[in-house]
């Protein structure tokens, strides 16, 4: 599904994002990428949805070599990879429904399909009752669920979650991780970037640990070791 071969990202000759990272994530896997701040976790996530280009190495997603992906092909990639961030990235002037519909509108999806898809993804994240609320009328956890719903509208094969619980309390964090697990059970590959020890330990899934941009450990059913 996702294959990285000797991937390095240098922001400057002296500033290394990731260094010679090689890994393989199989379809349907749930992988947590952990590490302290500045170890290259987010850089690795950005490389997966082509927000950053690697300085060296090769990246393949679903057999597609995106190492030197052309600008005009990025939208196609982004429709196959859902992305969730710590700060939710919701439009404050749009309702829950509109925020999710927006993702479909900009991709040229027809209104009838939008009317069909939005309630479906909202029910997956248990927000079908709050579709007319604005983001500021929701809790942090609910906002993150809206963001996840939005990431699911294109039925992505991969969902990359970059610190999705970073702004949430323990209870909301658990809810989000449970939701990601549920999505994973439907067959979506999940790449979770986090430094939340409790979540990682609770998941009991594969854990890749980064240190100074390098993979220091890669353990099936691993635990947070730092």
């Amino acid at each position: 599904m996702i294959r990285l071969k000797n991937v390095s990202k240098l922001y400057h000759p002296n500033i290394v994002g990731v260094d010679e990272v090689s890994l393989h994530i199989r379809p349907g896997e749930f992988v947590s990428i952990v590490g302290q701040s500045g170890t290259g976790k987010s850089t690795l996530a950005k490389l997966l949805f082509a927000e950053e280009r690697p300085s060296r190495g090769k990246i393949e997603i679903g057999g597609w070599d995106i190492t030197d992906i052309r600008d005009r092909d990025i939208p196609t990639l982004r429709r196959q990879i859902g992305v969730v961030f710590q700060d939710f990235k919701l439009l404050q002037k749009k309702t829950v429904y509109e925020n999710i519909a927006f993702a479909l509108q900009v991709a040229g999806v027809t209104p009838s399909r939008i009317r069909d898809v939005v309630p479906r993804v909202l029910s997956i994240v248990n927000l079908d009752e709050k579709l007319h609320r604005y983001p500021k009328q929701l809790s942090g956890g609910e906002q993150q669920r809206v963001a996840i719903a939005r990431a699911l509208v294109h039925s992505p094969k991969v969902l990359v979650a970059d610190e999705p619980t970073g702004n949430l309390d323990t209870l909301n964090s658990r809810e989000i991780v449970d939701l990601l697990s549920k999505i994973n059970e439907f067959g979506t590959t999940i790449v979770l970037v986090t430094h939340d020890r409790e979540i990682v330990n609770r998941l009991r899934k594969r854990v890749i640990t980064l240190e100074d941009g390098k993979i220091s450990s890669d353990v099936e059913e691993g635990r947070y070791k730092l």
Partner: protein
Amino acid sequence: MFVSSYRVTKFAAQNFWRNFWLSLITISMLLLTLLTVNTLLVMNVITERAIDLVEDRIEVSVYFQDYTEDTTITSAVAYLRSLAQVRDVQTISADEAYEQFLERHEGDEDILASLEELGENPFGPTLVIKAYSAEDFEIIIDALDNPQFADEIREKDFSNYEEVIDRIRETTDRVRGFGIALSAIFLFFAILIVFNTVRIGIFIHREEIGIMRLVGASNWFIKAPFLLEMIFLSLMSVGLAVGIMYPVLAIIEPRFNLYFGGQSVGLIQYFSENGLLIFGGQFLILVLITLFSTSLAMRKFLKV
């Protein structure tokens, strides 16, 4: 495609309304540029008309000796008419010249008394020659040095209209140069303002743009609203220019007609016949310029 086009148009309209004052300033600058260019066009039409009128009035009067035979006059007329530069030759006989002189000086006792004293008609026949353009008079005057009638010619009277025309051209050229410089300045500011309108538009929509990129909106979908908005602003500017130009022409044309002795300057006619070409051309050029400026701003500030 239809759905996307509708959404792009909607986003473009949102850009316009959310930055209403900036849109207004952009339109004002584009409009100022267009009005300056159109004023130059009006000036061009008026100049050409003025030159036509002046050229129409230019003539050379050739006064023959009072003893000149009619056959000489006839052959002089035939000779002049054979010249490509001559538009018309009018003959005034000695008697007609005498009558005209009397009419002109009616009431001037002294002059009439002097004429009476002479006892005979002192005037010879006169030829009034009209040319196609002011530059042709030099050739016509030279042609009259033909030995066949040179000795019979008493006087050649040619007012220096060429100088008048040169002066008209010189003045209008100077005003035109100033107008072109002014248009260039306005255009420069228009480009800068378009650039900044797009830049601010990108800044205001940075969140939406970021999310658009995130969820896989095509580059075209992100860029198109900005381009469309600028096309819309260009169209509005040209529309306003048309809306201002025609009423203004309707007001100023009668004044110019009066100045040109009741003859039509043909401003409205010119703008009616060439309106599509003039304003259509201006719209296309404006669109090209604004698109260039928009692309520049997007390349600098819109990372897609």
